[in-house]
């Protein structure tokens, strides 16, 4: 399997060349194009080899998120036929794509909307950072990704890597992913007044050592900016 990230950093896409039987898993709706020989199979995103219980939980969450207007919980597996083939994948928003190799002891937390694709035996488990997240608020829905393979995450806007050694605060809407070695908690940015008036919403406080991948744009920011201009 080979991959190339092209058209970055502004509007990156991921081009994957698949050998016979090789599989890349991608977020539903991410396909730009594929060669006719590549087969596509749709699955509920319950992780790598899920048990009955995790399938059930994934199904309930999928249903909840569908009703609440969140992203779908489905993924597509693209499989190379006997002659191999090619598939091109892209996220919904503008921005870049970052590749991370995962292996034993190297997990990554990924903001739900930033997951694009993965290869190998990478397992993704849902983690909720705060209660508001379930209800479509600004909180943090994370995928804890572990296992072996390549993980591809996308950013809205550019990607900024920050090496945290100590403590660092990031607006939840600007988080793409971060190393599993970091501790984090979600809270408000300042006092009570700032929470209501500052417009900064929720932030994530990281402590420890590891890398945080931030995105230079924020979907909530775009929504707040464009809303006054909407017709009617």
């Amino acid at each position: 399997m080979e991959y190339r990230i092209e058209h970055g950093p502004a509007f990156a896409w991921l081009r994957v060349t698949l050998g016979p039987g090789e599989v890349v898993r991608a977020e539903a709706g991410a396909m730009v194009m594929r060669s006719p020989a590549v087969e596509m199979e749709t699955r509920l995103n319950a992780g790598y080899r899920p048990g009955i219980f995790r399938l059930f939980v994934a199904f309930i969450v999928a249903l909840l998120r569908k009703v609440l207007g969140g992203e779908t919980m489905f993924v597509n597996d693209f499989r190379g036929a006997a002659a191999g083939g090619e598939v091109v994948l892209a996220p919904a928003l503008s921005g870049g794509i970052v590749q991370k190799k995962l292996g034993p002891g190297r997990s990554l937390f990924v903001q739900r909307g930033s997951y694009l694709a993965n290869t190998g035996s990478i397992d993704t488990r849902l983690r909720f950072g705060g209660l508001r997240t379930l209800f479509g608020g600004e909180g943090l829905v994370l995928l804890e990704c572990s296992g072996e393979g390549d993980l591809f995450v996308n950013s809205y806007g550019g990607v900024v890597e920050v090496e945290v050694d100590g403590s660092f605060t990031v607006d939840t809407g600007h988080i793409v992913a971060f190393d599993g070695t970091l501790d984090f908690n979600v809270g408000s940015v300042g006092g009570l007044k700032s929470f209501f008036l500052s417009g900064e919403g929720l932030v994530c406080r990281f402590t420890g050592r590891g890398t945080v991948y931030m995105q230079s744009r924020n979907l909530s920011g775009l929504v707040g900016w464009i809303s006054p201009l909407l017709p009617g």
Partner: protein
Amino acid sequence: MHFEVSYRPSHALGVAHLDAGESVRAEAGAMVSMTRNFTVDTSMSSRRAGGLLKSLKRGFLGGESFFTNLYTANGGPGHITFAPRLCGDMMVHELTPDRSLVVQGSSYVAAPDSVVLDTRWQGFKGFFSGESLFFLTASGHGPVLIDAFGAIEAIELDGELIVDTGHLVAFTEGIDYRIDKAARGWIASYLSGEGLVLRVSGRGLLYVQSRNPSEYGKTVGRRLPAREG
């Protein structure tokens, strides 16, 4: 008249340079700025009969009717700049009389009058929301300014390729397309998030964009305040 494109690829701006008496026809709403010496004439290229009112209604409701402005430079040279609605690239396709170009409706920006635009209805409306395609055919000769949502990839096609409906920009004569389900079954096609795809085949030049406007619209749109039905 010639085009120049700056700020590629993310926020491209198309500049048309005209000599005195030359004209350029552009999609209504695309003008950003211009020198003072232009006159503008609006015309409606409705792709179905139905007159002004129907065309207006479609324009407001579906964004499907197609108004163009003819800009003419008077008394001296001038320039006029154009931009697409959304972020992304723009490029110039040099049209030759032997090979017409089929352009996805919202990707056509501007061309001189030596390019003839056929706006008759060609395309389809999908069963899944947000999927509809409306094609224009450009023939004749001269530069055609087209835009894309995201980056543009030019593909020399010789064979078949499966392309998501939202990623197609344009293709030259000699290429044909067929609408197909994304997956084997209807339910799988729906759940896959891909809905309908185009099976594009033949020989020619195919332009694909790296982002899908309706995916972008859905992702941002579901977070916006509700509108009146």
